[in-house]
């Protein structure tokens, strides 16, 4: 408790009537005051709409007129509707196309960036993060042009090396990979930086010991690096899982959910209820999606929890 003078504050600042009890009270109440703005925003724009949505999900309200109580009909309708499950499956397939690839590419790039011997490290770090700072709508539109089957440069390049044209946006086989590529392109740089932060917290002497033991680089990555950055990996995977299951703007702009609903993600399917003014079903869909996302997040937190 020494060195107060170093900070340059004078004890005079405390007014005489503010005894120790007053300052204790202030200290006790301070954190609540500091959090109050968030709680206010949370209550007004999360809790209130959520309770409203909960009531709405048991009605057939379409935005105007009287709402009729329909009990669990909306939930039953959704759970019995193949289109609802298809939207979840689409998001699930996108998750599979995105997350493993992102973790592997991200890990390799982060490990290389973390090596002081790599030349042009600063340049790579900047270049990788550029997609992350580009506006999503702008880049989604660029995607539409770049992957156009007839006029896009990607098929031009494929043609130049003798490969056939691919209907990136027009066939249901390729539409998901095209959306996945957009997501990967946009966010992998961010993943690399997150993973790099984990790597920088590792004590490098662990590797020297492993190198002495003759462990190969790949072996070191898998059995030393990965366990040591488990928490960072968990953070990344949970963050990206939330993002993938909420994905909306990418398919909305690039494919409008097509062709044949192959890119109608969980988020876009939910949005479609709004455009049809089917608000009761939309609200029920919201809750089902929240439950799905929470369960998924908890599963990953469990899976990647450190063993201690």
């Amino acid at each position, binding site marked *: 408790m*020494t*060195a107060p003078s170093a*900070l340059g*504050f*004078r*004890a005079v600042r405390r007014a005489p009537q503010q005894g120790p009890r007053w300052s204790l009270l202030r200290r006790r109440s*301070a*954190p609540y005051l*500091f*959090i109050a*703005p*968030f*709680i206010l*925003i*949370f209550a*007004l724009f999360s809790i*209130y*709409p959520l309770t*409203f949505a909960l009531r709405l999900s048991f009605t057939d309200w379409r935005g105007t007129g009287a709402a009729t109580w329909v009990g669990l009909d909306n939930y039953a309708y959704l759970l019995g509707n193949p289109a609802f499950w298809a939207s979840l499956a689409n998001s699930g397939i996108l998750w599979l196309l995105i997350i493993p690839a992102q973790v592997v590419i991200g890990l*390799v790039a982060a490990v290389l960036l973390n090596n002081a011997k*790599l*030349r042009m490290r600063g340049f*790579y*770090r*900047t*270049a990788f*993060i*550029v*997609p*992350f700072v*580009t*506006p*999503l*709508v*702008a*880049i989604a*539109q*660029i995607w*539409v*042009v*770049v992957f156009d089957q007839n006029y896009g*440069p990607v098929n031009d390049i494929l043609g130049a090396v003798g490969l056939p044209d691919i209907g990136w946006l027009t066939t249901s086989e390729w539409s998901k990979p095209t959306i996945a590529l957009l997501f990967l*392109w946009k966010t*992998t740089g961010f993943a690399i*930086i997150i993973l790099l*932060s*984990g790597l*920088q*917290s590792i004590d490098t002497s662990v590797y020297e010991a492993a190198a002495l033991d003759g462990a190969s*680089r790949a072996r070191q990555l898998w059995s030393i690096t990965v366990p040591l*950055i*488990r928490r960072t990996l968990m*953070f990344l995977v949970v963050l990206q899982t939330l993002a993938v299951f*909420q994905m909306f703007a990418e398919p909305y*702009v690039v494919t409008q959910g097509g062709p044949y609903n192959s890119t109608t993600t969980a988020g876009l399917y939910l949005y479609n209820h709004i455009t049809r003014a089917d608000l009761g079903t939309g609200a029920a869909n*919201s*809750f089902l999606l*929240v439950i799905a*996302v929470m369960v998924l*997040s908890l599963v990953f937190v469990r899976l990647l929890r450190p063993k201690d």
Partner: protein
Amino acid sequence: MTTVDTRRSRPAIVSQAFMVLLTLLFLSPVVWAVVSSFKPAADIIRDPLGFDATSFTLDNFTAMFDSVPLASGFLNTAIVLVLKGTLILFFAPLAGYAFAKYDFPLKNVLFGTVLVTLMLPIIVLIIPLLLEMKEFGWINTYQALVLPDSFGLAFAIFWMRQVIASVPDELLDAARVDGCGEFGIFWRIVLPVIRPGLAGLAVLTVMNIYNDFIWPVVVTTSDSMQTLQVVLSTLAQNISGNTIGADYATITGQLLAASSIALIPLLVIFIVLQKHFINGILAGSVKG
């Protein structure tokens, strides 16, 4: 250890090759879009990979400014940025400080609400929020674009808690002994110390607000209130064939021009602040 260098050269080449490939993949769409936006519209489609600097023109840009209200989109985005950015950059560190440096009853429950908020994306709240905005009479207003974002605030608080946790307690106690009030400690000690983390959060926040799309789409009903991203997306709808009479090449040219212009502010902010941004992410991320 002289042999090590020769043994290492092969992995070094492979590493460099991997990094160069990634760089090409990450940069080429942006570079292609910006370069193409200066090409005559017909050429973009006829020869997407062709490059002829002598034919460069600003036609796509002038046509685009004639057909979409990009300037008002920029203005609206700027207004939202300033208002919302200020709110988040003040209240998120404040709450993050409370969570990182105080022990108080209900702390875990309250932090739990922050985490739950992160799992409640705007998309699930969109219907009731929209109805709430109608109730408040807030449709088509700046307050509707600025305030209803618990998610953005919660993310920033989560991030700031990580950053502030690393500030040494001794520093705070010393200020307290000096008679500094609780808010004074935050304002004069915590904020200056976490400036790098704050700069990172600032760039992240600016990006999120600038890119925000779903909420502005549903809550703005008039052209004059649309943010930049909403204005941009109307061009994409034109390209999917909603505009009768406009041909694919013309719209593609305008689209690339608009996208290029939208890219510029963020790229400039990022390049100027990149060190802070990357260090800020490094500071706020979960480690270990």
